[in-house]
């Protein structure tokens, strides 16, 4: 274990850096400064992967000290990461770096503030992924919305205000419930604690309390992911956000929802989650089919990717909640129930979706920068004018389709395999993504990339420049590497997921049940 408070660095460096950039302002190399901060953050996050003892799968790099201790309320500054957190932190630092590079020339106004917002958000999101104290988690969970709202509201499209307010209403409604639940949980611990392991260990929750807490988690995190029918903020927010905002929403912000299910909802109230798993499984399946069908008829590229995004996130919640449908089930070999497979699938899907949705949004951003439109009908025959761009777009599209050899395949494959163990029909419905995903993605590809160049604006399109090539190239490489060799990512998370499984498994349920009676 390192003595160095690496997690605090990852938390505060981007935040401080962000404020620093804000103070420096537009004139004095704000972009360079922001890039430096983002690069440093990324570099600091890398050792996590190498130093973390993934076989143990425990919380590591932990840091603790008293934060608030007044009026009888104790909140600790408790940080720690497991394999899943590390994967997400790496995704966050990586994507932030890319987004800042992507904004280099394309954001024309208030560049320093733009960059600062992303840096601050990076730090806060890192905080979400490393908080081991529920209230600390809540602070980051809500705090990250502030830069996000600003990004959306200041640099967004024509209807940005409406989109921002809608997003705000949704998330705020969710967080109200979340805070209530956390406070209640605090009161139930022996000495009053927000420390997550203390909350996991709670055995005296009544059935109705568990249910209410679970439902409030479901709403709070379901908005983020988003679960059907809490999703209608998303297409508008994605479509109205500036490119970087869409990328961070799709790649990072929705992952916070998935992660919150993993870190809070399931381990704190496993019994209620167990009882209500079927509901979430059904909602996830609805998301997969319903969102895909809606994606099919979108006329705006960003909205299409947005709906597709929700459909793909359905695999995350599906994988997570399948756990409860798989426990104790084993056909050929008692050692394998498929539940680790399901969670691995959900987690790999989160990482992969970050690359794929991020890549698609960045690519669409590059188009929009050239033609000031994200309508599909504005484009035709792009391949003739932008062959390199077309090749990348095709790669991202195929990853979105879940083609083997791309990262998009891995998570969905695992979840489909695992869901077949739970129930064949669940797998059948989930697997429709193979057909529907191909239909909406390739139809869009056909309309945008293929066909004749039919206007003078299209005729003047320039292929991507070196900076854009690097951005898309790095993402493309990540997609391919993860597709052909997911093993390193899986090894990183396997131990942690097995540890986590103990917290939500039936054997752990037993004492809790006793506590009820």
């Amino acid at each position: 274990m390192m003595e160095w408070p690496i997690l605090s660095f990852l938390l505060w460096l981007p935040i401080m850096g962000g404020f620093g950039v804000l103070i420096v302002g537009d004139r004095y190399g704000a972009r360079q400064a922001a890039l430096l901060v983002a690069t440093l953050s990324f570099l600091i996050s890398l050792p996590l992967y190498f130093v973390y003892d993934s076989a143990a799968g425990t919380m590591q790099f932990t840091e603790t000290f008293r934060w608030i201790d007044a009026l009888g309320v104790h909140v600790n500054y408790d940080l720690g990461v497991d394999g899943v957190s590390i994967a997400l932190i790496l995704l966050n630092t990586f994507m932030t770096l890319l987004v800042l590079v992507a904004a280099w020339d394309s954001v024309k106004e208030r560049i320093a503030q733009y960059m600062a917002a992303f840096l601050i958000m990076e730090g806060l999101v890192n905080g979400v992924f490393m908080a081991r104290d529920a209230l600390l988690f809540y602070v980051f969970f809500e705090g990250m919305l502030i830069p996000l709202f600003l990004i959306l509201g200041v640099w967004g499209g024509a209807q940005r205000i409406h989109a921002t307010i809608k997003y705000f209403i949704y998330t705020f409604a969710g967080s109200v419930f979340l805070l209530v639940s956390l406070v209640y949980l605090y009161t139930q611990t022996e000495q009053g604690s927000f420390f997550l392991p203390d909350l996991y260990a709670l055995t005296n929750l009544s059935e109705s309390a568990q249910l209410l807490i679970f439902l409030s988690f479901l709403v709070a995190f379901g908005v983020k992911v988003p679960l059907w029918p809490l999703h209608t903020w998303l297409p508008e927010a994605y479509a109205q956000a500036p490119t970087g905002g869409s990328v961070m929403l799709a790649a990072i912000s929705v992952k916070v929802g998935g992660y919150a299910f993993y870190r809070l909802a399931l381990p704190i109230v496993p019994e209620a989650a167990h009882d209500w798993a079927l509901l979430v499984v059904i909602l996830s399946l609805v998301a997969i089919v319903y969102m895909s069908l809606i994606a099919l008829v979108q006329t705006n590229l960003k909205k299409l990717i947005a709906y597709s995004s929700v459909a793909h996130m359905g695999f995350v919640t599906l994988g997570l909640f399948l756990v409860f449908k798989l426990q104790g089930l084993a056909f050929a070999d008692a050692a394998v129930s498929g539940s680790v497979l399901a969670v691995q699938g959900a987690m790999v899907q989160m990482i992969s979706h970050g690359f794929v949705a991020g890549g698609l949004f960045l690519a669409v951003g590059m188009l929009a920068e050239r033609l000031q439109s994200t309508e599909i009908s504005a484009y035709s025959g792009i391949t003739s004018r932008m062959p390199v761009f077309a090749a990348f777009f095709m790669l991202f599209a195929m990853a979105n389709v879940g083609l083997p050899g791309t990262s998009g395949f891995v998570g969905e494959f695992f979840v489909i395999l695992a869901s077949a163990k739970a129930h064949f029909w669940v797998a059948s419905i989930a697997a429709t993504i193979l057909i529907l995903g191909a239909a909406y993605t390739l139809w869009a590809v056909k309309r945008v990339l293929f066909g004749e160049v039919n206007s003078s604006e299209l005729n003047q399109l320039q292929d991507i420049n070196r900076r854009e090539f690097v951005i898309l190239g790095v993402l493309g490489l990540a997609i391919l590497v993860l597709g052909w060799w997911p093993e390193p990512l899986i090894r990183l998370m396997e131990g942690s997921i097995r540890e986590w499984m103990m917290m939500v498994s039936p054997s752990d349920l037993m004492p809790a049940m006793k506590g009820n009676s």
Partner: protein
Amino acid sequence: MGLMLLLIVLAPLFASILVGVFGHKLGKVRSHYLTTGSVALAFLLSLWVFKVVALDGTIINENIYVWAEVDSIKMQFGFLIDNLSVLMMLVVTFVSLMVHIYTIGYMHEDPGYTRFFSYISLFTFAMLLLVMSNNFLQLFFGWELVGLVSYLLIGFWYTKETAAHASMKAFIVNRVGDFGFILGIAVILIYANSLDYIQVFDRLEVSVVGGKGDLPLDPVTQALGLSHQDLIALLLFIGAMGKSAQVPLHVWLPDSMEGPTPISALIHAATMVTAGIFLVARVSPIYEQSDIVLNFILVIGATTAFFMGLIAIVQTDIKRVVAYSTLSQLGYMTVALGASAYSAAIFHLMTHAFFKALLFLAAGSVIVAMHHEQDMRKMGGLRRHLPITYWTAVIGALALCGIPVFSGFFSKDVIIEAVHHSSLSASGYAYFMVLLGVLVTAFYTFRMIFMVFHGDERMDDQTLLHLKESPKVITIPLILLAIPTVLAGFLIGPLVMGDFFSQVLLPAHNVGEGMRDVTTIMVAERHPALALVREGYHGVLSFIGHGLLSLPFWLALAGIALAWWVYIKDDSVADKAYDTFPWLYRLLDNKYYADSFNQKFFAKGAVYLGTSLWSFVDRLLIDGLIVNGLGRVTAWSAGWARRVQTGYLYHYAFAMVLGLALMLGWILLALRSV
């Protein structure tokens, strides 16, 4: 050995990447040398592997790397090289090599020259990955990647609307098959906890004498009245139906002709479309457990073989004739699978790869000579101008019709015989269909030959003036393919009648007492069709002699004679036939309305559903009623605040903070008492 196998697979991949990325810098010549060279290398090394595996009798089963190890399930990449896979390797690399050479001539004026070479080398890589795999994961990788390359190549001329549409259609229809395939893999994993072929065979207890090991049935298979082997076999076959274009998932293949001709030969005739056939043969031990699925396969295959052949009769586009012929021939292979004559299916796969690639490339040669005219009504009399193309095409046609000594005769005859001897309940229907199919095949094949190469020269004067035989890079592959088209049939002895495919993958003594060996191709004793054919086999010559006296041969002759009568002797017959049966013509010309049904029902249906969900559920119900409704209620309850503050955000925020406080208090109170 592992290194050599890797080299076979990776050489085309590296060539493809190099040419794909640096094609414009390398230039045309270096690009085609690089890719063609890599495939030639793969072919030569495959020959060496053939020597080691087939002649020395070693089976190679090696894992290369762990792709993922999750939940104690090891998913790996690796190679299983036995006689089945090495035969496929030879067919794939040989045809691919021919097509690479041919492409140098065929595409030399195309602006996408290097891109095309990059794609076909990538295809070779993916196809090799597929056939050399030792597990279902890698199989699926190869399966999807060949699909990707097929998609890219059908849409190669992407500015053409029809090409763009055909490529999308091909991918999506294939995905319907893959839907079954991936579920099949999932069910395999449930029962076997492994994706490795041999472990799967072991754990599915295919070696139990008499079949049907007693693994637990889960609720689904019970509800459907199927055993788990039935379910697995059915789901995997749905995948095969997509890739091998069996009814009703055949609709993509005719449209795939939008792609350049060389890939029609390589991908949509010789190799990729046979992947489904290969898949079923590869996992024959599973299929042998499921009579119900074998019956299903017989019906699907026979239907495809006959009814798709019929459509070929009314086609006027030379490539589409060959495409429907491919559908029909894939039907024959499928029928062979259904009759448990897997080796006959693979044998026909091989001979078909040669003669159909030959026919496609010959058609391409005609198309080049005709300045990219594909309508046969504008051709005629070409045999005087394109002698090499003509003679090679005739050889291909005779093989396709199953005229003795040409390779197609052996492979098709043995399939028909096997179906004849099959004891499955669907075999009667299948036998009838494949017999009739012979007549149809001969008719449409020679209709094409006569329309293109014989009779009057119907093209315009300009074209006629410039007609000349294609260059050597085009005719040499034709000649090289004509050789196995004539000779490959003589391999029937070892391949089908012998024990070429009986290599032992999993010795019985490793499994347990009273078990059978698991072999490359495994046939249960209750499916004696091919065994009965073998009993009556006394060498190649007697097989030919027997063939000359049997029904299929005479049906083929009748078909050729009929074509001669209609298209050479008396061209009013066709018109009369049309006047008598206009509905039949319309039915065939519209391809049984399958396309319009799919378009109207599935495509329009999905769009309609999407639009309705979007406008009614998303916008009206969720947004309109609930979200905005909540917003209004909040705004209303915060009505008094309106005078104090302006701006929506403040309203909502204020109301929510208030609500939060109330709710917090209420819940805390409510829960304290619990």
